[in-house]
């Protein structure tokens, strides 16, 4: 059995996960990354996507996160999500609303950078919707 480490998934509203895990897959800003124990310290922003957690007991859980960032240390990993829900309990309407908002943001974008950002966000959401 691989070494385990402490993983915390927190959203502003509550603490979703706080347990010993074997590995975590995070949708990082520059690509997906799998974190195992003794990972080098990394700080990364997280784009909307699915986080896959393999617990120390071997079961896997999946969570949808909507942006945030991860603080990775050799001893543990903290994922601060802007909002997060377990994949099983995701609300399709909520997702649709988020996409609607993103589209409006895109339409409202004034300059190129904000437009690009909004477009990226919308793309992430679309991939997320396709993934679940």
């Amino acid at each position, binding site marked *: 059995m691989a070494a385990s480490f402490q993983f915390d998934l927190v959203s502003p509203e509550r*603490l979703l996960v706080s347990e010993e895990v074997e590995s975590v897959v995070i949708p990082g800003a520059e690509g997906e990354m799998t974190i195992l124990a003794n990972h080098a310290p990394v700080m990364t*922003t997280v784009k909307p996507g699915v986080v896959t957690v393999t617990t120390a007991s071997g079961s896997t859980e999946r969570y949808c996160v909507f942006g945030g960032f991860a603080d990775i240390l050799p001893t543990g990993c903290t994922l601060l999500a802007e909002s997060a829900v377990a994949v099983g309990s995701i609300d399709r309407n909520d997702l649709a609303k988020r996409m609607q908002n993103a589209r409006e943001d895109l339409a409202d974008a004034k300059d190129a950078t904000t437009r690009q950002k909004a477009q990226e966000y919308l793309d992430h959401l679309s991939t997320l919707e396709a993934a679940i």
Partner: protein
Amino acid sequence: MASLKDLRNRIASVKATQKITKAMQMVAAAKLRRAQEAAEAARPYSQRMGAVLANIAQAVGGGGDAPALMTGTGKDDTHLLVVCTAERGLCGGFNSQIARFARDHIRRLQGQGKTVKIICVGKKGFDILRRDFASLIIDRVDLREVKTLGFVNADAIARKIIGLFNEGGFDICTLFYSEFKSVISQVPTALQVIPAAASVAAGAAESGGTAAYEYEPEPGEILSDLIPRNISVQVFRALLENAAGEMGAKMSAMDNATRNAGEMIGKLTITYNRQRQAQITKELIEIISGAEAL
């Protein structure tokens, strides 16, 4: 002297009021517990956010790539005050306490010749501040329709603040809210959120040493993403503290009211009994003296 019937009516009405205040107290107690739980649940996020922010801030240093939200505009001419109060009254001195605290602050700033702008969160604060500073209030946020306070509400307020900052609307932003100490004590607090440097420095002192991180993307980029989020978190925390404080204040205010009503009923009952007895005695005297006269 009130008649017996008047007294009876009076007692009945006080009893009805007591029932209402009692019910309100119990509702407040239940809501308080929920608000406290929400505040508790939000704590890990804001703590970790503070630690992470301090880490990155140290990595970036005070260098040129630190975002303006952190370093400020370098002036302190225009102050934005975000005054958070409750949406409802009947909670003792809770709202007026915050409003008074903010008012003192405004007067002091005005005395120093600064420009003051106000954003009111919550109806009650708006009602109070409107009397003195109607021209300074630039915006108000109504949370009356909100059933459970979510991060989205805080995020919307924070976005408003940041948008205003980016337009050059103000130099320093301070958040006014009531810190929840206990059910009977809520302390009005001012928290400076922009520039964020001060609060970040405090976080750095708490978190202690920093690890040598790798950053993805660049620290400056993360930081400029993080600071606005941190402001949302601060606002969210303020709103949650306020919600808990409001319920605490309401609970003790209603407890007082219930007790007062109880006292009043006691007093009225004594008066009522005394008067009834006096009337009986009077009637007896009339009968007896009538009989004697025969």
